[in-house]
């Protein structure tokens, strides 16, 4: 099938995922009504008589639409970030999550929650910003450490270093939580992630961050293609490897960090989405990056839909759903990776 048709089908898939995310739940709303509500709110078009003075209107516009769009943005951001990590470290199993962003961010968040520490000019953003900084610091330390141990950054080195860093940071986290058990519930939110009670303000802040991040990353697509062949080859082909590598790692960690600072840590989408995209579209980053956005976003919306409907009316943390699907997938990619060689 031609790439053009695959892209069109992927966009339709994303649209359907969003419609399902918005329309399904305790109250079911058909796509035509959802579009009608959006058109009414944005372009002031008249509402369908069935929707006037209905609770569906409030549920869709105030709860489900911002929640679903936020899930789409977060999923897309972490998936794009994952595909960047994989190409820069030329490793199909590398991602912020496998490199310990989760443990780092959780530790940062735990320190803020437990100590009640507040950075004056950041106010309520102290928690997400600290989570972001600690998460990014863990990823950078892990990459630096892995590069020091093994210059070629073999798959096993990356996985092991990620594991060692996660275990170490988790140990500190356990120490912190052991001393402050009252805050366990809040910490669990961070470690498992959730989209509940998210409103438009989150979407409005995250949208430009993700848009700019993805466009900047997309501008490095040729460099990423070349770097999958190794840094030495990229260097001799004229790529400014050092600059490109650290720009991309920063952009990628920044995207993941921003995303998880809103909703907590949600793993494995950054591993699964780029993998699926490469299977369908090949490895060219010109297509892999935007399609990772669409697939990562759609997967996250579907996982969130499962999280909030499977044991309705109560809700599961979405990170638990992604981990339930993601961990076996991780094992599958790891053990079948020889097919990639």
């Amino acid at each position, binding site marked *: 099938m031609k790439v053009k048709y695959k892209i069109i089908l992927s966009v339709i898939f994303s649209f359907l995922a969003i419609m399902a995310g918005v329309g399904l739940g305790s109250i079911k709303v058909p796509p035509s009504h959802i579009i009608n509500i959006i058109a009414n709110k944005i372009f002031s078009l008249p509402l369908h008589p069935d929707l006037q003075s209905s609770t569906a209107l409030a549920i869709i516009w105030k709860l489900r639409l911002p929640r679903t769009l936020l899930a789409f943005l977060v999923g897309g951001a972490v998936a794009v970030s994952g595909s960047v990590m*994989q*190409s820069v470290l*030329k*490793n*199909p199993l590398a991602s912020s999550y496998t490199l310990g962003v989760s443990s780092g961010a959780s530790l940062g968040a735990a320190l803020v929650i437990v100590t009640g520490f507040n950075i004056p000019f950041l106010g309520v953003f102290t928690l997400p910003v600290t989570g972001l900084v600690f998460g990014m610091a863990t990823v950078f330390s892990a990459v630096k450490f892995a590069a020091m141990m093994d210059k070629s950054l073999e798959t096993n080195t990356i996985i092991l270093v990620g594991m060692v860093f996660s275990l170490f940071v988790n140990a500190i986290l356990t120490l912190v939580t052991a001393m402050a058990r009252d805050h366990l519930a809040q910490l669990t939110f961070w470690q498992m992630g959730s989209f509940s009670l998210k409103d438009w303000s989150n979407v409005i802040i995250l949208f430009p961050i993700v848009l700019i991040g993805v466009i900047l990353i*997309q*501008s490095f*697509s*040729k460099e990423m*293609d*070349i770097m*999958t*062949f*190794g840094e*030495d*080859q990229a*260097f*001799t*082909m*004229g*790529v*400014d490897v050092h600059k490109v590598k650290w720009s991309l790692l920063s952009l990628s960690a920044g995207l993941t960090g921003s995303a998880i600072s809103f909703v907590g840590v949600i793993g494995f989408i950054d591993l699964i989405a780029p993998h699926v995209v*490469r299977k369908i579209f*090949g*490895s*060219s980053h010109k297509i892999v990056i935007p399609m990772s956005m669409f697939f990562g976003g759609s997967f996250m919306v579907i996982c969130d839909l499962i999280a909030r409907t499977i044991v309705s009316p109560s809700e599961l943390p979405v990170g638990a759903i992604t981990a339930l699907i993601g961990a076996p997938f991780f094992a599958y990619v790891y053990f079948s990776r020889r097919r*990639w*060689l």
Partner: protein
Amino acid sequence: MLSLQNVNAGYKGIDVIYNISFSLKEGENLCILGPNGCGKTTLIRAISGLIPHEGSIKIDGIDINKMKRADVAAKIAVLSQISTIYFSYSIYETVLLGRYLHMKGRTFKEPSSKDKEYTDKCLKAVGLYSIRNKQINELSGGQLQRVYLARTLAQEPDIILLDEPTNHLDLKHQAELIDFLRDWSKYEGHSVIGVMHDLNLAIKLSDKVLVLDKGRMAAYGKATDVFSSNLLNQVYDMNITEYMVDSLRIWENFDHHLKMGKLRKVN
């Protein structure tokens, strides 16, 4: 075109090669020879800029330390050894990546028709045009080496550096690669600098040879002038000439049997 003057280079502050000096004219090929660990790869890496060096390495009279990375890459390309492929691309996509420097400033645009035409030309030159849409992880070692060769040519360099390019290649593909590179340098007026283990292939490709022994130049010049029993035996620490002559005798014997019809000729 390329000149080295008293070049020292190494790793982590410890020099591996010392006082290397030579110069190459357009269309001249050089083979770097010597036993394992004598510094051949280090010399190639220093010329390509992958590791820092002392002394001067000049291209067309300009020191590479004073040139931008992109300007060096526009002059010198490196034909890589075959290595693990983590993410697969089509042959065409891989060769087109060689046009990277020529496509700068076209970040969000399609490759220009000139880039596409040049990529096609390189694919035809290495005989892969008809299978250009195949994925590179489906190729044999010989085919993959040709893909990398086409990508190197697509860079339009003046000098190609090779580090043991015939690794993983069977005899036929080794000979084909060497013939191709010799023709490329002669007809296009470019140069090839290659690290080689096979003395026969080195003689075929090179106009000059540089023999390294423990990081120092043991000899430099035309192979016919430089190769002597004493030099080779000393550098490789074995009786190379006796080994070569023995091999020839064996082949002579085969030939005798072939002529007498005692062995079936294998096509």
